[in-house]
Every structure is written in structure tokens, then in C-alpha cells.
């Protein structure tokens, strides 16, 4: 502490430690006092499966209703919430998993039963007041592509609304804010979507 340079460097080095402690405290308390969202409702209204010409994989389109309130997830350490609708289903036994083409890995195993989760829709919510989700007749943002080539014959699916809370500093957290009440059947493919 005898010279100007020495005092600046001592104070700044203590201050950076103190700042890290402060941010650690913020991260720890916001993780320990983590809010959760009230379960909302997810309703899949229609499912249509198409077989496009010259494409091996079927593609599905869904229409859904969402009603959920994610505003409770905002605290002083919430930067944004990523809300996403997930479709989960099991492939029919013996369907081939084309995500792994023979060229890439070579391992094609018979009798596999893949477990699939696909994000059908998502939204980045940056402000608390936008956290009230009320969607009617929403359509999937991303085409649901059957990795096992066909949906028909695959086990029925369910859809769930998930969220990922992104803090200003600290740990990322995840949670569920509603799911379909019952499982839904995959219909037979209609051919050639224009």
C-alpha cells in the first residue's frame, strides 16, 4: 500500500475477488430459491403425416393449443426463458434409424427401438410480461421428420411444454409446464404434399 500503483492493484484485485463472491451469492440464492411454473394445458388438436415424393422420411404437422403462464419464472436473475414444445415417441421395433447412415458409423442393429424427442415449436421470452403463453391452433415451427422413416406403427406420442431459464449469472435450469393429458396415435401417411 506504499505507492499509488500498489494501492490501485491491491484494491482492484480485492475488488475482483469480492465481485466474484457477489456473483456467486447471486447465483447460489437464485438457484436455491428457484421458482417453478404452474402447470398449464397442452392440447394437440390434429396430426397429419405426409409422405413426400422421393423422400424416404415421413413428415408430420400438428396443430396445438397452449395455455401456460411462465411469468412466475422471472426473478432478479432471469435473463430469458426459452419455452419449447416437445413431441416424444418410441419408434416401432425394427424400423431403421436413418440419423445414422451407414457411411457415418456403420452400425445398423436389427430390432432397435429408438426413443425420440423432437422440438416442434419454441419461443424465446425476454420479458416477464410476455411470459403468458396463450396459443390457439399453433403449428409446429420445425417439420417433425420420422427418423425411423415412418410414424405409422410407431408408439403413440405425447407432447409436453418445457422451459429453460437462462440466468444473468449462474446455473441454467429446466422444467416442465404442462403436457398432453393422453397419448395420441400417429395416423397413416397421406401421400405427396404439394
Amino acid at each position, binding site marked *: 500500500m506504499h505507492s499509488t500503483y500498489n494501492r490501485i492493484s491491491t484494491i482492484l484485485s480485492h475488488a475482483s475477488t469480492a465481485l466474484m463472491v457477489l456473483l456467486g451469492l447471486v*447465483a447460489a440464492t437464485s438457484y436455491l430459491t428457484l421458482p417453478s411454473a404452474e402447470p398449464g394445458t397442452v392440447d394437440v388438436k390434429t396430426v397429419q403425416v405426409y409422405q413426400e415424393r422421393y423422400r424416404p422420411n415421413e413428415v408430420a404437422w400438428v396443430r396445438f393449443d397452449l395455455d401456460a403462464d411462465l411469468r412466475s419464472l422471472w426473478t432478479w436473475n432471469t435473463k430469458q426463458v426459452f419455452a419449447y414444445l416437445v413431441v416424444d415417441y418410441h419408434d416401432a421395433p425394427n424400423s431403421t434409424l436413418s*440419423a445414422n447412415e451407414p457411411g457415418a458409423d456403420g452400425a445398423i442393429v436389427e430390432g432397435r427401438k429408438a*426413443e425420440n*424427442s423432437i422440438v416442434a415449436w419454441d419461443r424465446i421470452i425476454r420479458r416477464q410480461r410476455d411470459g403468458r403463453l396463450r396459443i390457439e391452433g399453433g403449428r409446429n415451427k420445425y417439420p417433425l421428420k420420422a*427418423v425411423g422413416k415412418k410414424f405409422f406403427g410407431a408408439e403413440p406420442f405425447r407432447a409436453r411444454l418445457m422451459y429453460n431459464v437462462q440466468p444473468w449469472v449462474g446455473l441454467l435450469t429446466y422444467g416442465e409446464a404442462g403436457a398432453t393429458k393422453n397419448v395420441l396415435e400417429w395416423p397413416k401417411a397421406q401421400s405427396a404434399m404439394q
Partner: protein
Amino acid sequence: MDSLKQLRKMGVRQILLQALTFGSVLASGLMMWKALGLVCNTESPIVVVLSGSMEPAFKRGDLLFLTNFPNEKFEVGDITVYKLPHQGIPIVHRVIEAHDDSTVLDQFLLTKGDNNPEDDKSLYGSRMKGLKRSNVIGRVKGFLPYVGYVTIVLNDFPQLKYALLGGLGLLALIQKE
């Protein structure tokens, strides 16, 4: 003459001692990095975000803490850092499709940057249709903003890096105690 010799001897000793201190600082840093990698089971437990493809969640220069435990499956919504075999730079993107295969104990993942309109299929190239677990370095668990920006600046202006290294070295040699 005699005292001059003694002084020079002291000088060498002093310089060597300084070099040793400098080396031990570097070594302990490396040790902590490797220990953290061991605990988190990943080759790089801390990464700096280099692109804006995950904005507004992650900006350039934000620091991410990763884990990659073998018994934890990747799920949709997880933010992963992966490295493609034909590309050197790790990419931070979110998993939007996960296909688990119980028979071969692997997962096939499709990722997408929150800020990108398209998924990463075009990034993977024609030979890969999805990521495998072995492509993934880790899953983002923790977040610290801005701190990594220094490394971006140092990478963008390499002269600054050498100036800083030289300055630090000089300071370590000059400073007594």
C-alpha cells in the same frame, strides 16, 4: 570487483527464482484447468462463446461451464458444445432433436442455434445426418457473462497478446519479493 561478482551471482539466482515463480503460476493454472476437466468429465470445462448464434441467451465473450457425465443423456432443450471432425472450432447450439438408441447406447442429436433460422444439418455436411455423443464436448451448466471477452480481443489482435505476455514477463522479472 569481488562485490560485483557477488551481485551478479545474486542476480542470476533472483532471475531464476522469478522464472520459477512464473512457471509455478502457469503450472498451477494448468493443474486447476485439468482437474476441473476431470471433475466435469470433459476436455474443456470452460468455453468462451465466439459467435452470436445463441443470442440473446449467449453473447460473444460470455463464459460457459460444461459437464459431460457419461450416465447423463442429452435431452432436447439442452445447450451443447460440439466439435465436428472436419472443423476445429467448437459450436454452442441447442439440441432440438434427440434420438436414443438403447441397443447401441448412443444418441443421435440435431442442434440449432436459437438465433439461426435453420438447424445445423448443413453444418454437419453431407456425410453426417446428426451428431453423435462422441461429437459433443459437453452440456452448458453454468453461465458467466462478459468475462471471456478478453480472450476474444487477444485473438483478434495478436500483437496485443505478445505485448501483454512480454509485459507480464518483464514485470515478473523486475518485481522483487
